[in-house]
């Protein structure tokens, strides 16, 4: 095993552990914090793939902004075990079974996908995730989808402001 593999398995273990803890923890605030841990592990994976820009944007946007908003909402709504409706045993069991089936479908899909067969991850030589290359690709090959996305963001912002107005 070389360093990259060790780091890969370590980060994967951390990511899966944190993701499980998001589901297991009873306290919503703990769940949010475990989710932040998951994002950090995934950012580590991005760095292994030499996609530094994606790694840091993942942290800034998800860990730094969206999760803070989640925390805000949870803290203000004061969710806790007493006043939160608890699901019954059979509901939980049904959830686990259907979720497990979905995971099996996903795994078989990934295993058989033609795009992924016999491909290795570009751990050190891939450079598409560097900010320079990413910017060039976004503004040349994918310029129309990129601009459409920005219009979408703008409409979301306007919508949020309209909804946030008091009257």
């Amino acid at each position, binding site marked *: *095993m*070389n*360093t990259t593999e*060790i780091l890969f398995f370590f980060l994967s273990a951390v990511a899966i552990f944190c993701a499980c803890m998001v589901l297991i923890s009873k*306290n919503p*605030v*703990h769940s949010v*914090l475990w989710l*932040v841990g998951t994002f950090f592990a995934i950012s580590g994976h991005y760095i292994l793939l030499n996609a*530094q*820009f994606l790694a*840091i*944007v993942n*942290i*800034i946007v998800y*860990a*730094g*902004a969206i999760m*803070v908003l989640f*925390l*805000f909402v949870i*803290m*203000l709504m004061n969710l806790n075990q007493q006043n939160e409706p608890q699901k019954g045993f059979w509901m939980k069991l049904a959830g686990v079974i259907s979720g497990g089936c979905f995971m099996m479908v996903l795994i078989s899909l990934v295993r058989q996908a033609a795009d992924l067969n016999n491909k290795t991850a570009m751990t050190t030589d891939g450079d598409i995730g*560097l*900010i320079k290359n990413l910017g060039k690709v976004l503004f040349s090959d994918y310029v129309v989808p990129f601009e459409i996305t920005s219009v979408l963001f703008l409409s979301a912002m306007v919508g949020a402001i309209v909804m946030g107005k008091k009257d």
Partner: protein
Amino acid sequence: MTLLAIDWLLIIEKLVLIAIIVFASLGIALYTTFAERKVAAVLQDRPGPERAGPFGLFQPLADGLKLIMKEEIIPTSSNKALFIIGPGLAMTAALMTCAVIPWGSTVELFGRKMDLQIADINIGILYVFGVVSLGVYGIMIGGWASNNKFSLMAALRGASQAISYELAMGIALIALLMTTGSLSLKTIVDQQMQPGHLWNIAYQPLGFLLFFICAMAECNRTPFDLPEAENELNFGYHQEYSSMKLGFYLFAEYINMIMSSAIMASLYFGGYDIPFFNESILSPNIAALVGVAALLIKIIIFIFIFMWIRWTIPRFRYDQLMNLGWKSLIPLALLNMLVTGAWILYRG
């Protein structure tokens, strides 16, 4: 058979560098608290701490000892795990920034060339921005876990303030990035050292002003210290904390101040560049040491300005703070970005 192909010397070198930088930051932060009290005393026309040691120089050591010796109190109704993690997070986020700051140019020791920077990653500024956005967790978690209304209100105030001012800070940074064309702090400093290239403050005066104001807000310094407004919130988000946990929160503020001073010095004031002086006539090692001294002097000047403002300007009201952030700083930052873009386009 080698199991791991690792350059052990490099790792040792980096570990030593990390240790030096972290302990130096802690030491400087320790004496920054002393400087704060002395500056406050001078501005208020009183002697300030003077009993412990010559000129009161041992005062910060006595303060630290007092904090460590105090009784550790964890409220029974608090969320214990998060209550303990909170100050640690605040401190970690404050110290993480130092990884990408270029403290000096290259020194040569034992035949190895060593950069006086822990990691020269090509997204340096974004890394700083990411760490700044994580800084809010320490405040929010600590305030919430205390299970105290005042703490929670202070934490929410602190978080909304940090989010509001991050935006203007980010847009001010984008304008700077447009002129430098690089995200690496080392490259930005080296650009400013080139002959014929002025410091970035000459190209981005408005951007610097915006960045400075936002940095002050991010550090929760007066006039932006709403999260610890003692006349409204008793003591703010760290009200329930005692002993060294409180010390960590107070200390993290000073470390944040040092780090943001270092970032501002690197981005806008040439980092380890000495003004009106050509470093290449010195031998590389001496030039690097003089550069470190120059950066430290710039940091000290910024810290003094932070303190000067703190003891001169009273605190904002909360609506004034939000209006300043959203209605003045963000439009100005956007304008700055547009003007910078137009200037780059015009220059070709």
